[in-house]
Every structure is written in structure tokens, then in C-alpha cells.
């Protein structure tokens, strides 16, 4: 067996020890909840699974629609890449599925741009597709609830104009617009509790603090601060998984927060990582796999050209 480099081992063990210490500094469940309540950061609320009768009004109003997007690149070095994107909106009640697609290639975008710029473009393009799909879903599928994979803030930033339209449409039609965030990156709690937290935790992310602090079905609705204007945020543990997810709502629709919490809790399998099944189904359908991309390349570019695009790195055999 190959021997591991000694220095590497030492360095790694130091990093691991530091991480362990940081975990020790996390406030305990009771203490954290205490701090949050005392400082008025948010309100805890326990949801339960809805009964079929309780779900009935949703299905009468048009069911639940989910929106998700997927993006994938052909293997290659910038700018010799083709990016394929698609967004899908799919409703539980209507048969129609709404797809929006885009294909980007930095070589043919008119202006010259560097890789970072291109990545930004890719991100905003995906957000735009998702917003378009969501907007069309709101108009055509008329669901009771529109679940968006990812935070609403992201749409607002990446696809400004469409977002406003979507928001207006949702409010006008009485569609609950909900963002479901799998990976929370905000630091709302730590910044509100700065004074009461140990040094290492002052910059802690919300998920890190809330990990294990919520019971199954329990949500923490954050009292609005200036940070995410126009939105209402709820952190919620929707399954057996101790890591919470984030739920975004429009400020205008914040009165429905508890209803949305219950709905999401109901639609999330207990033994899953905490995302409503419907979004997973949408995700599965919209996903642009490597195999698909390869197939597209081989079909439309031909074997020789796709060989031309393949970077040397992909050919390493050792």
C-alpha cells in the first residue's frame, strides 16, 4: 500500500481538530432556542402532516406546481464549451409540462468575456429560464402553490424584470409563491445574536446553528429585518434529517406561512433529506445528464468534433 505523506497527515489532523472545537462551541439546543426567543429573532412553530381533507382545497384550487432548472456543460476548457440549460414547471393537477431551454457557447456570444463573466451569465440565464417557466406556470397551470427550487431572492437578483412580473402575477392570482432552499447560506441568526455567541460562532451560518435544534416538523419563522426585504424566511426541519431547509415567502403572503409550512412538511417523505417529493420529481425530469449531453454532442457535432473538444485531462488513464 502506498504510504501517505506525513506532513499531509499532520496538517489534516490540525484542521480536523479546529473543526471539532468549533462544533463544541455551538450553543446547545435549549440555549439557542432561548436566545432566539429572548432576542426576538423569530418564532418557533410546530406543524403536523395535513389530512386528505385539509389537502382538498389545494387540489381544488389547481394543485401544486414545482419549478426547477438544470444546467450542464460539455467537457472542455473555456471557451470551448457548450452550456445547455432547461427549466421545467410541472403541476400535480394539470397534464401540461412547461419547458424553457437555452444553449450558450462563449465563442459565439458576440462580445468577448472571461470565464467569471460567463459563469455569471450562465447563472442569470438559468434564473431567467426558471422565472419564465414559473411565470407561464402561474398563467397557464394556475396552481394554488408554486414551489420554486432555490431561494426567491436569487430570482429577484438574477432575473430582475421577470421576477417583478412573476411576483405581480402570483399576488394577483392568489398563488402562493414559495422558494424551497436546500442549502442555506444565510447568516441571519448569528448576525442578530452576535453579542451572545462565542467568538467562533459569530459568523456561523444559519444551518450550522440550527442543525439539530429543531424538532421534526418544527419551523422557525424569522422576524423580518432589513436583510431580505420583501421576503419572509422560515427555517424548517421537514424530515428526520437534522439539517433544516429554508422556505422563502413573499412578504405580501406572509400570513400563509404556517399553512405553507404544514404543506411542505406533508409533502416531504420522513426519511428523506427534507425536500418536498414533488420538487424531487421535477428535478429528476428536468435534469440534463452527462449522458444526454454526450448524446447531443455525438449526434450534432459528430465523433471527430467532440474529440476536438475533449480536454487532455479527460483522457488521463493513470
Amino acid at each position, binding site marked *: 500500500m502506498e504510504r501517505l505523506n506525513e506532513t499531509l497527515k499532520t496538517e489534516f489532523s490540525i484542521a480536523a481538530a479546529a473543526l471539532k472545537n468549533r462544533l463544541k462551541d455551538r450553543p446547545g439546543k435549549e440555549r439557542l432556542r432561548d436566545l432566539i426567543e429572548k432576542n426576538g429573532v423569530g418564532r418557533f412553530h410546530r406543524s403536523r402532516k395535513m389530512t386528505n381533507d385539509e389537502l*382538498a382545497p*389545494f387540489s381544488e384550487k389547481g*394543485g*401544486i406546481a414545482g419549478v426547477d432548472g438544470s444546467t450542464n456543460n460539455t467537457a472542455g476548457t473555456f471557451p470551448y464549451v457548450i452550456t445547455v440549460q432547461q427549466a421545467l414547471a410541472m*403541476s400535480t393537477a394539470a397534464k401540461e409540462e412547461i419547458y424553457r431551454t437555452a444553449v450558450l457557447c462563449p465563442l459565439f456570444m458576440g462580445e468577448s468575456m472571461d470565464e467569471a463573466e460567463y459563469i455569471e451569465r450562465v447563472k442569470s440565464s438559468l434564473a431567467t429560464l426558471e422565472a419564465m417557466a414559473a411565470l407561464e406556470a402561474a398563467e397557464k397551470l394556475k396552481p394554488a402553490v408554486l414551489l420554486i427550487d432555490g431561494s426567491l431572492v436569487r430570482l429577484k437578483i438574477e432575473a430582475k424584470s421577470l421576477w417583478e412580473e412573476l411576483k405581480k402575477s402570483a399576488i394577483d392570482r392568489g398563488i402562493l409563491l414559495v422558494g424551497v432552499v436546500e442549502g442555506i447560506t444565510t447568516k441571519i441568526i448569528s448576525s442578530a445574536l452576535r453579542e451572545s455567541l462565542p467568538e467562533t460562532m459569530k459568523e456561523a451560518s444559519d444551518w450550522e446553528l440550527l442543525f439539530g435544534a429543531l424538532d421534526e416538523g418544527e419551523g422557525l419563522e424569522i422576524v423580518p429585518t432589513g436583510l431580505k426585504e420583501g421576503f419572509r424566511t422560515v427555517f424548517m426541519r421537514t424530515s428526520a434529517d437534522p439539517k433544516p431547509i429554508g422556505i422563502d415567502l413573499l412578504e405580501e403572503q406572509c400570513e400563509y406561512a404556517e399553512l405553507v409550512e404544514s404543506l411542505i412538511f406533508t409533502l416531504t*417523505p420522513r*426519511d428523506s433529506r427534507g425536500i418536498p417529493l*414533488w420538487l*424531487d420529481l421535477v*428535478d429528476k425530469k428536468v435534469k440534463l445528464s452527462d449522458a444526454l449531453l454526450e448524446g447531443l454532442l455525438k449526434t450534432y457535432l459528430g465523433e471527430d468534433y467532440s474529440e476536438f473538444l475533449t480536454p487532455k485531462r479527460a483522457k488521463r488513464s493513470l
Partner: protein
Amino acid sequence: MQVVGLTTPQEVFVASRERKFRINEILVIDDPNQGPLIGEVVEANSYNRFIPLSINHDFVDSRVIESLERLGYSISDDEINIARVKLRNEASFPVATGAKAHLPEFSEVRELLVRSTTEDGLALGEIKHTEETAETMDEDLKGLFYVYSRGEKKKTKNVPFLLDLKSFQQYPHIGIFGGSGSGKSYGLRVIMEELMLKGIPAIMLDPHYEMDFSTREEGLEDAPDFRESFKKFQIGEDVGVEFLALGKRDLLDLLSAVKPLTEAMSSAVEILHRRGDSFLSFSSRLELLAEALELGRIRIEKALQQDLEPEEREKYKKMKELLEEYPNIPLVSVQGIAWRLRRLQASGLFNHNIKPIKEALLQGKLAVIQGPIWLLQVFSTYLLANLYRCRRDYKDGELRGEAAGEYFPPFVIATDEAHNFAPKGYDAPSKGIITEIAQEGRKYGVFLVLATQRPTLLDETVTAQLNTKIIFRTVRGHDIATISEETDIGPEEAKRLPYLPSGDAFVSSPLFGRTVAIRVRFPYTRSPHTLNPFDEIKDYRRKAQDRLLDLLEKHLPIYDTNLLKVVQALDAEAPDLKMEVRTLKDSLEDLVRSGKVQKEETPFGTVYYR
């Protein structure tokens, strides 16, 4: 419905989102290059990409799926059905992937499914999974009979399976294989009913006493009445063997059927039996010889020298003659033969002849021959050989252009437990004639329908001649192997044999050129044995009790001090009850237990009253 995945010229996969496939269904594949190709589903699968749900390694509980259903989404919508389809005829090159497939209209597959008409075919059952195709079928083929499915009798909605009568000329014999409870007897019953409907003369050997067609099954509209179409004969009571007509060979067969003969006995029979012997002449010769051998020459001669009644003298004289005529026959052999002959005689076999059977056949009826299996073997040997000879003589005479002899019709011979009549590996009296008919019967229009649960035990020469085979559920590996060897049944079907529901069968026939999965139609008539033995016990008890209660009625109330008087009264009224005081008391207690009679203890003893 379209072809997906890798294809070969023999086999393709067809996928459909809307429709579930069923095994044995027929599909037409519209290959853009080769035109329509007909195939049969040999494997059917369903697949749902969300169940068992593990999406991104999460596992989904049913509660959530139910909630989604409430919201209008049914996860089963995402089901994909896949069928493995074997092409009927090999294509010239692999089928185009993406080719569309459709369920055939009847006209597209008529040749494949129906090879006869309702007039000329025996309607044995329905071809499974052909409902859709049957909708476009000619009206006269629709709803011909009833089938039994999921506890209900219903008019068939499938394409009927018609076994063409005229094809018997080419493929004359039918084998029916299947374990007990597989529906084999039903199958046999249906074939016999169909033969009766068509007025085909037939003989049915019935060791189980179950082939009675007089009780109609309930709830079947316009079920035909078979009471006049068949005749039941008990061996020894209605029919028998005419001793006078027996040849030496026949007699040997008969005797050995009781118990195998030793060589000494066989040669003794050959010596002792004379042409034109009646039963009486033959048996008295045997008995007399036995007596003579027992007495011995010296004592017989001594007796003859004494003063005897004339009759006695005559007898001793005869004994002496016999001894002189047959000097070398041992006593034990003669005794053995005599014993066997007595047994045959006791069964009544020699008191009748087969004339009634011949008459039934001439009238186009079914003759059901009943008797214990050993007697059936003996009798059938004689009967079949005789009838076959009648038919052959007539037919041969016709061929030779001789003035037509006495007409004798073609006929069908059917039997259950056929392995008893033509067993493999050892000799049975009836084996010779059955083998002969199996090999040559076609020429003369004599056909076999042989049913058995153990095809492995059936003589191979016979098995090889069974052209059409109807195979019901079979569990024994040995028999499945035999069936696979003897039929064109494929490995897929063979695998399904142990799991076939009762009444379902595969038909392997050269006429169809493929194995057809059928469900045998519901018989119009009922076997007399369908009463469950446990119901029978209950039934009997209840009846006996009711009868006793009726009889006791006028004696009630009965004091247990007075039982004797009641017994005497009962004895007079119903002597068959054979009541005694003890048994009457027991019966009264029984009645008390079943609540039909009350019992009370009084100062005068126990009293039973209504």
C-alpha cells in the same frame, strides 16, 4: 406502443405508457421496412421510475404519495409497461427500433387464432388475453360459451379456441396432461360434451364414475341437454364379454388381468380352451379336471368299479377321460385358472355382451363405461379390440371394393388415467390395442383422447402419437421434462406450468404451429362428485337426525325409564335404524346438544321433550 431497445429478428421489446401487457397477448409490429410482423408477448413487465422510490438516495413513504394523489398527481401515471415479444415468424432482419406496435384487429390474426368454424370445431375454451381482438370478431364467434373466472361464471369475451374436427384426420389423437385439481377432468368433460354436441360416436372409459352428463350446471343459459346423448354402462351389469366369442388370446388377457398368469397356467389355458367353448363348458371342464387331479387316477378307477348312481358314474367317467386327455397339467395351475375364472364370473362379466355399446355408437352417442380399474382394463381390452375390428373390417372391405359389410362408424376413445391402460415399461392387457390404434387408428377414423396426470408413465409409442396436447398445471419436474420433450412448449411456458390456475392450459397442436394459452370453457354439466366429502358428512348427519326426530315426534316426551318401549316402537316402524336402548339414549343426547330437543331432570328421572 412502440419497439424499444435492442432488437433481433426473433424478439423485440415493446413499451407502452398507457397499456399493461399480458402474457400470450398477440401484438402486430408495424416495421417500416418489413411490413406488419406478428408476435406474442412472452414476458410482461411494469416499471415505475419513481417506485421503489429512491430519488437522490431518499426513500419515499406512502403517506407522501397519497398526499400527492390528493393534489391530483397519480404516481402510477409514470409507469412504463414493457413486453418481451417473440415474433411468430422470424423476420428477415432485426426489427426497427421505434417501430409502432398495435393490438391486432381480428382480421389481421384470424388465421392464427381461429382454425375452424363453430360447426366443425370443438369449442374447448377461450384463447387467453384476446378481449380487444375479440371485439372486432365475427358475431357468430362471440360469446359462444361460459368461462369461470374469479368465482363467477361469465360469457366469454375472448376469441374462442376451436379444435377442428376435420383436422383429426391429419392429427388424430389428443393427450391431456395435468396434476390433480388442475382442471384436467373438466377439460375431458368439455371435450366429451363437444363430441356429443357434434354427434360423434365415442367411448369413454371412466374408472372414477364421474362422467355423468345428466345434471346440468346451474346458471348457464341455454345449456344443452345431454341426457339423450350419452349412455352409461356398468361392466357386469349392463355390458360384458360374450364368452363364446372369446379367442384364446382374449381369454388369456382376461384371466391375467385378474392376476398375472404363470407360464404353466398360460399353457394350460391354451390346451384347455376349445373353440366354441361356452363359459359353462369351459368352467365345468376346469372344475372337473381339478377334482380329478385331486382324487388321482387310482381313486377314480376304484370309484368306477363300485356301484354308482348313473349321474355319478358319468362324472367319474368324464374325469377319467380328462385325465387321459390332459396328463401333464399340474393341479395348482388348474386351480389357479379356476379361481381367476370364478372371479371374472362373479363380476358378472360373462353375463352380458357389448351389443348395447355398439348400438350407442351407431346412434352417434357417447358410451360411458364404468367399472373398477382392473375390470375396466380387462373389459376395455376386449371391447376396444372388438370395436376397432368392426370398424377396420368395414373400412377394409370398402377399400377392397367388396360389397359393403355391416356399417360401423368412426369413433373416439377417451379415458382418464391413461397410464393404467398403456403403461410404460411393463405390459398391460390393453396396451397392445391402444398402441395399435395410436399408430394406425387414423386410417380407420378411430381417435384417442388420453388423459393422465403422469405423462412420464404413459407408453412412449403412444405419447409420440398424441398430436394435440392440452397441458394443465403440472408440478412434478419429471413430468414437465417429459412434456417439454414431447411438445413444442417453450422454456417460458414450461416455467409457468406449475403456477397455471385451475382450468388454464396450454394447447400444443401442429395445426396452430405454436403453443396457445387457453382457459377451458365451463362445462354445461356437473360431475356427481362435486359434493365436498366434509359437506357430505354434515349433510348425512343432519338428515339422519331429522329423520330420527320425525320418528320420535309422536313419542315425546320420553322418560329415560321408558326407553325400551320407544325402541320397540321404532323397531317396528324403521327396522333399518337398529336402535337399542343405549344408542337411542345417545341419539337423544345428540338432539339435546343440537338444540332440537329439551332435556330436564325430574323426580321420575330424565325427561326429553320438544
